[in-house]
């Protein structure tokens, strides 16, 4: 077994920050009240939930009353999409999204289609970017709603969300942004950007799993998906997950410091070092946009190799990575994101994603680059595609 462990799968999830864990712990047993109770125990929990709401709102420049806590990013996406589509179904039944969204968004749209809505899925270019003229052309009479991700989980490309928001505003169409990968990692100000809704997830920013939030701009009406006790302004019933919400709040607070203390620049420097070292290997090319990408995100395609074999060899060297190959997706098709970007099936099978975290060091990057080079050479030595080339 290997001595060194380098986790480079922060797009999948992050470790809970020790300060976050510390903030959460009292809310499991000492301060266990239900935030909806009137007594002391309930008031203690309510106060904690309210404080966390302030922290999350402050991270994105919103007001605390605009934050709806949910059971994660997928739930927030479902709430935004189904909630908006159903609320405005008398006004129109046409909704728009993009080809590279997370399944939580794409599958919600497919469900809406089954329910009689018309859906338009915008294509992307070879960097994974949506075109603003395409969005303009897609909006028509009866369009009520557009959902677009801030940044892509597989290739890190940052979408032109500010321009998209402006167009939606001009055309009187609601604009939802899936910000799961971006919030806490790049500056996001919902007022400046003009979003109507924004999905967030705690565990992508050093908070706990199982808690997320939807920003819903004041004045935007949506239907709930989960009905019940009327918590979260009636938009998400169910007793508040106090400990999780407190953890999300603390994670948001820490993230806002990281956004201004130079951490992002250092992360970007290490990302660029990794991209440079990885793409220096023969027939390894970057996927996604070179500069308009998440500061922690490196993704490449490795020619003549299949992703799963690289992942398992990296794993044996103590390195955690991910891939969009068919073998890792659990289906026979490789990543729909890479295919939408125009990559061939063969190239998509060789995809590799390496996502850095706040504790990733330069030594880690060098270690990963050296191991990647060795593993690619070893695996190519037995790839019939590699040797048969002229």
């Amino acid at each position: 077994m290997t001595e060194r462990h380098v986790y480079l799968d922060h797009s999948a999830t992050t470790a809970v920050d020790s300060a976050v864990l510390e903030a959460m712990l009292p809310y499991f047993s000492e301060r266990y009240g239900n935030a909806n109770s009137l007594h002391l125990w309930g008031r203690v929990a309510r106060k904690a939930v309210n404080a966390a709401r302030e922290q999350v709102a402050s991270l994105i420049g919103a007001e605390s009353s605009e934050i709806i806590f949910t059971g994660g990013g997928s739930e927030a996406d479902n709430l935004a999409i189904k909630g908006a589509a159903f609320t405005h179904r008398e006004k129109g039944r046409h909704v728009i999204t993009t080809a590279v969204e997370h399944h939580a968004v794409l599958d919600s749209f497919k469900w809406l289609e089954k329910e009689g809505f018309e859906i338009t899925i915008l294509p992307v270019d070879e960097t994974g970017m949506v075109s603003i003229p395409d969005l303009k052309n897609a909006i028509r009479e009866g369009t009520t709603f557009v959902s677009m991700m801030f940044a892509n989980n597989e290739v890190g490309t940052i979408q032109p969300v500010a321009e998209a928001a402006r167009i939606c505003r001009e055309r009187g169409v609601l604009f939802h942004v899936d910000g799961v990968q971006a919030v806490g990692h790049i500056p996001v100000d919902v007022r400046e950007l003009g979003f109507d809704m924004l999905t967030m997830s705690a565990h992508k920013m050093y908070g706990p799993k199982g808690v997320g939030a939807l920003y819903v701009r004041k004045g935007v009406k949506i239907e709930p998906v989960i009905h019940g006790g009327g918590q979260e302004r009636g938009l998400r019933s169910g007793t508040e997950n106090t400990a999780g919400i407190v953890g999300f709040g603390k994670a948001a607070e820490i993230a806002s410091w990281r956004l201004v203390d130079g951490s992002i620049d250092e992360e970007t420097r290490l990302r660029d070092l990794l991209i440079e070292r990885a793409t220096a290997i023969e027939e390894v090319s970057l996927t996604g946009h070179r500069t308009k990408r998440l500061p922690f995100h490196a993704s490449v395609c490795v020619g003549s190799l299949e992703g799963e074999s690289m992942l398992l060899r990296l794993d044996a060297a103590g390195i955690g990575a991910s891939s969009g190959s068919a073998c890792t997706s659990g289906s026979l098709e490789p990543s729909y994101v890479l295919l939408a970007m125009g990559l061939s099936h063969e190239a998509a099978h060789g995809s590799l994603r390496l996502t850095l975290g706040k504790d990733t060091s330069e030594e880690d990057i060098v270690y990963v680059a050296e191991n990647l080079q060795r593993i690619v050479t070893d695996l190519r030595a037995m790839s019939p595609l590699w040797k048969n080339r002229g």
Partner: protein
Amino acid sequence: MYSEKVMDLFMHPINAGKMENPDGVGEVGNPRCGDIMKIYLRIKDDRIEDVSFETFGCASAIASSSMVTEMVKGLTIDEALAISNKDVVKALGGLPPQKIHCSLLAEEGIQAAIEDYRSKQKARTEAKA
């Protein structure tokens, strides 16, 4: 997810690499699906003297190739043709259901290489005649 045997053969494959001047070569699979297996055979008096493989694919594809080449080494052609994908799966200590196709590629790879050998033999005999 994978058995110890699969991981062992994936990490330390036996018989990996191209063969110079093989008597039979079989290539199965396609890059679109993410699996290509190429089997090389050296045959003397209808017996497989040496065998090697090149594989583009996941861990189970590489392990299946390595295993099937180990299994057919030293066998006669007819004995090698009798090896099925189930034998390969069994020898590997099992494969996850979605990976069974890798063992099928291994079976088909050997068959294709033998077929190639036989057609070359036939051509040679006809040339002599």
